[in-house]
C-alpha cells in the first residue's frame, strides 16, 4: 500500500493585482523527499515558497502537512524551517545565538538549548563556532549557519530559497554536495527554489518546472530530460534547437518526418502528436551527428559557429533548406564554413521530440 504524501499543495493560486503569480499549482511530496522548484525568473517559484512558509496567503487552494491543513497557520506556528537567499542571519547576534533563536521560543531548559545548538553546528561542520560574529564568517559559512539555524528547531519541512546563488561558482558545487548529504542524513522533507538546472538536477529527487505560475511538468530529472511534456520543458531543460518539420506518416513505434526533403524516423512516445502535417522538432545537440553532406538520410548544411567545450564542441549548423540545428561532436569534426550533413545519432531515442507546429 502506498503511503499518503506528507506535504501536499492543492490547487494553490496567488494573484497580485492583475498578475497571477501562482496558478492552480498542485504538488505532493513524500516524507523525506527533496523537490526542486525550477523555472525562469518571474515563473512564480519564490511565491510558491512564500506560500509554503506562510508569508503569503493563497487566494485559492490549500497546503497540508501530514494530513493537517496548515493554510491558515501563521509562519510562526507552521514549523517550517527556511533558509533565505541572503541568509537573513541576525547581525547583532553571534552564531550560537542565531542557532539558538528558534529553540528559545519553546520550553527547553538552557542546557538542552546549548546542547542542541552544538549539535546543529556540528551537523554543518561548524562545531565550536558558537561565539563568532556573523560578520567574521565567509559566505559559505554563513550559508551553513543559516542551515543549522533552520534545522535546529526540528522543522517539519525545510524551505530553501536559491540556496547557492550567493556563493562563488567554485564553492557552489561543493556546497551543493554538502547540502544534499546533510538533507538526506536528516531525512527532512525539503522544497528548494532555483533557476539553475544543474542545481535542480543534482539536489532534487524530483524537479517541478514552473512556467508563468503554472506547473509545466514534474518528475525525476531523467524524466524531464528524456520525456519533456511541452516545447517549454524541452527547451528549458537541457538544450534543444527547434525546427519546423512535416510529419509524413506514423506507425506503432516511429514517426516519419520530412526535413527539407530528407526523411527521418523518430522513435514515437506515448501522447506525442500523431497527425500528419506540420510539426516542430526539438532536437538535442547530443542526439545528432555530423557526417558528409550527401550521405543517406543526412540533412545538408553549413557550419556556422563552433563553441569549444573540451572533449566535445557544439556546432551551429545553418541548414541549406532553412532552419538551424545544434550538434555536439568532437572539436575537430568540422570547421566553420564546412559543408556537412546532419543525421540522428544511433542512440538518439531521448533527444528528438515532436510537438505541434508553432502557431507562428
Amino acid at each position, binding site marked *: 500500500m502506498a503511503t499518503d504524501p506528507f506535504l501536499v499543495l492543492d490547487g494553490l493560486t496567488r494573484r497580485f493585482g492583475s498578475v497571477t503569480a501562482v496558478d492552480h499549482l498542485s504538488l505532493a511530496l513524500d516524507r523525506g523527499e527533496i523537490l526542486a522548484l525550477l523555472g525562469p525568473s518571474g515563473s512564480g517559484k519564490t511565491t510558491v515558497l512564500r506560500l509554503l512558509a506562510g508569508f503569503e496567503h493563497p487566494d485559492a487552494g490549500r497546503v497540508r502537512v501530514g494530513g493537517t491543513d496548515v493554510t491558515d497557520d501563521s509562519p510562526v506556528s507552521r514549523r517550517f524551517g527556511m533558509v*533565505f*537567499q541572503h541568509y*537573513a542571519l*541576525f547581525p547583532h547576534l553571534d552564531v550560537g545565538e542565531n542557532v539558538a533563536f528558534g529553540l528559545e*521560543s519553546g520550553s527547553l531548559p538552557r542546557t538542552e538549548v546549548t546542547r542542541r545548538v552544538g549539535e546543529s553546528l556540528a551537523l554543518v561542520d561548524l562545531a565550536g563556532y558558537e561565539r563568532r560574529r556573523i560578520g567574521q564568517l565567509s559566505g559559505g559559512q554563513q550559508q551553513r549557519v543559516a542551515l543549522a539555524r*533552520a534545522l535546529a*528547531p526540528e522543522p517539519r519541512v525545510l524551505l530553501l530559497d536559491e540556496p547557492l546563488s550567493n556563493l562563488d561558482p567554485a564553492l557552489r558545487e561543493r556546497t551543493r554536495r554538502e547540502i544534499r548529504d546533510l538533507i538526506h542524513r536528516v531525512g527532512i522533507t525539503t522544497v528548494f527554489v532555483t533557476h539553475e538546472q544543474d542545481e535542480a538536477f543534482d539536489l532534487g529527487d524530483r524537479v517541478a518546472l514552473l512556467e508563468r505560475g503554472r506547473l509545466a511538468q514534474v518528475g525525476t530529472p531523467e524524466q524531464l530530460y528524456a520525456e519533456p511534456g511541452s516545447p517549454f520543458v524541452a527547451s528549458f531543460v537541457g538544450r534543444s534547437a527547434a525546427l519546423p518539420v512535416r510529419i509524413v506518416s506514423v506507425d506503432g513505434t516511429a514517426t516519419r518526418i520530412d526535413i527539407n526533403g530528407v526523411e527521418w524516423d523518430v522513435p514515437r512516445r506515448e501522447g506525442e502528436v500523431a497527425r500528419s502535417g506540420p510539426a516542430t522538432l526539438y532536437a538535442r545537440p547530443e542526439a545528432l551527428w555530423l557526417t558528409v553532406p550527401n550521405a543517406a538520410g543526412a540533412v545538408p548544411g553549413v557550419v556556422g559557429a563552433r563553441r569549444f567545450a573540451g572533449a566535445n564542441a557544439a556546432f551551429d549548423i545553418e541548414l541549406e533548406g532553412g532552419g538551424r540545428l545544434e550538434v555536439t561532436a568532437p572539436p575537430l569534426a568540422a570547421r566553420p564554413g564546412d559543408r556537412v550533413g546532419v543525421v540522428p545519432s544511433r542512440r538518439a531515442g531521448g533527444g528528438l521530440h515532436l510537438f505541434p507546429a508553432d502557431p507562428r
Partner: protein
Amino acid sequence: MSRRGTQVAGAVLLFFLAWLVAYPLVLTLVQGFRAGGEWTAEHLRAFLARPTEMRALWGSLWISIASVVAAGLIGIPLAFLFTRFDFPGRRLLGAALALPAVLPPLVGVLAFMFLYGESGFLAHLVRAVFGLEETPWRFQGAGAILLVHAYSMYVYFYLFTRAGLTQLDASVYEAAASLGAGRVRTLTRVILPLLRPHLAGAAILTFMTSLASFSAPYIFGGGFRVMTTQIVATRLNGDDGLAMVETASLALLALAALWLLQRTDADEVSGGSKGAAPERRTLGSGALRVSLGFVSVVLAIILLLPHLTLLLVSFVPLGTWTTEALPPAYTTGNYLTLIRDPVRARPLANSLWMATAATLASVAIAIAAAALTVRRRVRGARAIESLLTIPWAVPGTVFAIAIAAAFSVRSPETLRFVLVGTAWILPMAYLVRNLPITGRAVLAGARRLDPSLEEAAATLGASRTRTLRRVTLPLLRSAIVAGATLAFVTAFGDFVTSIMLYTYDTRPVSLEILSSLRQSDVGVAAAYGVVLMAVSAVVFALGSERGSSG
C-alpha cells in the same frame, strides 16, 4: 497581533496624530476667518492692507534666501576642501566644524551677542585698543541675523555636500579625465550635477530653518521684522485673528518649500556608490600648505569663539566688566546661583524632565509608526507618514500659536481641553516638534532593514513581540539613538514654542536665560547657556558612541 488588531492600532495612531498635529493647524486657519461667531475676511483684509505685514513676509523670504546663499558659500567649499585635499590643520578644523551644532538657537544668539554685540567681547577689545568711548558699530538688524544664520546653518551644506562627495567614486573623476575634461569642466559638468540632490536638500533645509528662525530676529531684529517675530508681537497686542492669518501665511510659505523639497527628492540622481573614494590630494607647494594651515587654524578659532566667549562671560561677576579689554574679575558665583537658589534651579529640572518625556513619547510613536507603516501597511499609512513630517515643515511659532489656540478652550465634545497653563502643554509642544526628528530616523532605519530578517524570526517560531524585542529593535538601535539624541537636544534648548506657552512653574532654561538677560544678569544667563551647551554636547557624544557600537 491579529490583522484586525493591527488595523485598529493603525487607526488609533492615525487619529491621535491627526488630533495632535493637524487639528490645531486647521483650527488656527479657521480662526483666521472668524470673528464674533461669524465667517469674515476682515483679518485677511487687515493683513493685506498693512505694509508692515508685507514687509515682514518679504523680510522672512529674503533673509531665508540670503541665508541659503551665505551658508552655501561657506559650507560647500569647506566640504570640497575636506573631502578632496589634505593640508596641515585638517583634523583640527574638522573637529571645530561641528561646533555650531551644540549651540541651541537661543544660546548661539546669546554667544554672538556677547562676542560681537555693542558691549561684547570684540567691542571691549576694540574700545580698549583704540581708546574709544563708544562702540563704532551696532550688532543689529538683518546683517546680524544673517551672520548668526550663516554660522549655524553652513553645517547643513557642509554635511550634505560631504555626504555627496564621499558617495562619488574615484572612477567618476577618472572617467571624466579620460574623456579629456579638465578640472573645471569635470566640476561643472560632472560633479556638481551629481551633487545636485544633496545641494538641493541642504538648500531647502537651510531655507526652512531660516524661515522658522525666531531667536536671532527676536534678539537682534531691532526694527527689522520677520514673520515669526511679527506673529508674536501681534499676539501680544491681543489681535488674535490677525495673528492667525499671519500664522497661516507663514505656514503656507513653509509648505510650499516642503513641496519643492519632495519634488527634488523624487528625481534624485543615483551616483555610483560602489568602489573606492578618490584619494585626497596633498596640496602642492610649501607656501600654499602653510597659508592653508594658517587659514584653517584661524577658521577653527572663529568657529570656537562664540563658545569661548560664552564660557568667559559665565565667570564674570555682575556689573564688573565695564571698560577693560578682558574682564577684571572672575567668579564661580553665577554657577553656584544656579545650583543653590531653588528658584533658579527649577528651570533646569523643568527642561530636563519635559525634554525627556517628549523624547520618549516621540520615540515610542516613531516605533509604532514604523511597525504599522513599513512592513504591514495599515490603511492610512501614508497619512501617518505625512502627519509625522508636517511639524518639520511648519515653523515652531506656527505650532505654538496653533496649540495655544486649540487647547485654551474647554470643549470635550470637539476634543479640545484647557491645556494651556498646565504642565502638559510644553511637553506636548516639544513632542509635536520632535515627531519628524525621531519619525524620519526610525522610519528610514526600518526601511533599510532586510525584510527577510523578520520573516526568518517568524519561521523560527518567534511571536511578533519577541521579533520586535529581539530582532527589530536591536537592529534599529542606532537609528533610534540618533533620532532620540537630536530630539532631546532640540527640546532641551527650545525657545520658539516655549516663549508662547510656558507658565511660571514650567519655565524652561531658555526663558530663564531671557529673563536673566532682561535683568542684565548677564553672567547667570551665560552660565545657563554653558549648561545648555554642555548638556547638548554630552548627549551628542553619548549618542554617537551608543549609536555606532551596534
